[in-house]
């Protein structure tokens, strides 16, 4: 039984296996999938009712409304990211896997992003039309969400990993993650604002992309460390 000790494992094996598993699980428990999208649509469609249907006002507020709704719905969804795995013991199997943990958590966060954030990105132009955004600006809304929501998922996953061992982690995740959301929110909304008054918005997008690169590089290690602490305690 000595020969299997030193086997070298391909990194992609654990990533794809876990991605596939989480997607299958998500599609079998569709209720959890719908919630963030439902929240996103509700918040945005309530705004015209609350502040009045005046086109110029809504147009001005649209970037903020869309981004804050996306941000809060990410926060709402993230509590379930590790919860189920923690409760049924699968998280222990992941920690004891010979695959590096940061690869496995990347797969989990990616699956979670595909299931909870991609529907928001697809729905966003329709909701943008409701807020009197038009033409190129709708494309920019989608683009900023496409680059920005993975950062939000990564950041909130750090909070989820740190709080998964606690019974009520929801509020704590918000406190940990919200300050880190702020730069994403600022660059996301200002890109849309710039586009709507026909200024170049490439700079803001570049900043968002830089934040994404940093998040994808470092967050998985933080998430992995957080999970080890949570399971160890």
């Amino acid at each position: 039984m000595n020969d299997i000790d030193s086997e070298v494992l391909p990194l992609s094996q654990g990533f794809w296996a876990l991605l596939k598993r989480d997607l299958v699980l998500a599609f079998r428990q569709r209720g959890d999938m719908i919630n963030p999208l439902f929240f996103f649509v509700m918040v945005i469609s309530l705004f015209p009712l609350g502040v009045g249907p005046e086109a110029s006002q809504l147009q001005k507020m649209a970037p903020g409304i869309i981004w804050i709704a996306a941000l809060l719905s990410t926060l709402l969804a993230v509590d379930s990211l590790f919860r189920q795995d923690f409760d049924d013991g699968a998280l222990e199997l992941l920690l004891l896997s010979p695959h590096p943990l940061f690869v496995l958590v990347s797969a989990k966060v990616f699956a979670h992003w595909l299931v909870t954030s991609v529907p928001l990105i697809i729905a966003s132009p329709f909701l943008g039309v409701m807020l009197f955004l038009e033409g190129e600006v709708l494309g920019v809304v989608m683009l900023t969400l496409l680059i920005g929501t993975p950062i939000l998922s990564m950041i909130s996953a750090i909070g989820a990993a740190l709080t998964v061992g606690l019974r009520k982690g929801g509020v704590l995740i918000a406190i940990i993650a919200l300050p880190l959301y702020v730069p994403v929110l600022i660059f996301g909304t200002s890109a849309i604002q710039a586009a709507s008054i026909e200024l170049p918005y490439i700079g803001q997008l570049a900043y968002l992309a830089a934040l994404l690169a940093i998040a994808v590089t470092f967050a998985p290690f933080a998430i992995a460390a957080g999970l080890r602490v949570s399971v160890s305690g």
Partner: protein
Amino acid sequence: MPVSPNSLLTADSLFCERDDRVLFSGLSFSVEPGQILQIEGPNGSGKTTLIRILCGLSQDFEGDLFWRGQPMSEVASQFRQSCVYFGHNTGVKLALTAEENLHWMSQIKGIQADKHSLNENIQNLLDKVGLRGFEDVPLYTLSAGQKRRVALASLLLKPIPLWILDEPFTAIDKKGVAELEQLIIEQANNGGSVVLTTHHELAISPEKLKTLTLGSQATQSEARMDLEQEAADE
């Protein structure tokens, strides 16, 4: 204590306390290939804590662990390929079928096999744990014992030197208990080792079985002396 590279797992003067209560201190033992180590003790004596320390889930202890004579921190990745853990919560996903569960578990465990041979292997294992005919239904339709049997099948996906089992006999029927005991004995006969906690009397020949009793300090040092005696005999 000298650490022998022949031992699979060696623990040297482990100390652990919970809420100012010392669970064990100065606990030293080793697990040799072909040996079954049964951890005994009353409820709350730290059996599960010790198991979690041994498999690397808990860092909340003092002392040293060695895998094949090398410090655990240096060979963690090798250790994780050579050890399988079966705890109170087995990690099977209720919304997935038995087959799908074994699929992801084998890949997370880093088992390299082509699709066809893996499928065949999984079919045989489900046969072996008595779940033929239940391959394609989601696990939430099965009984508690059947769910644990799916997780037990994952122990057998490939030969693994060290099994760490926490109360493996829970929720399994009499016939299943006998079968599982047989699997444990086979594992030992094949040169593998098993560390387990159970309150169940094991029908295993004493030369293979080593017992470690947790609980009061007195019984602990006795257990340690027993172990040292055994080591001297060998």
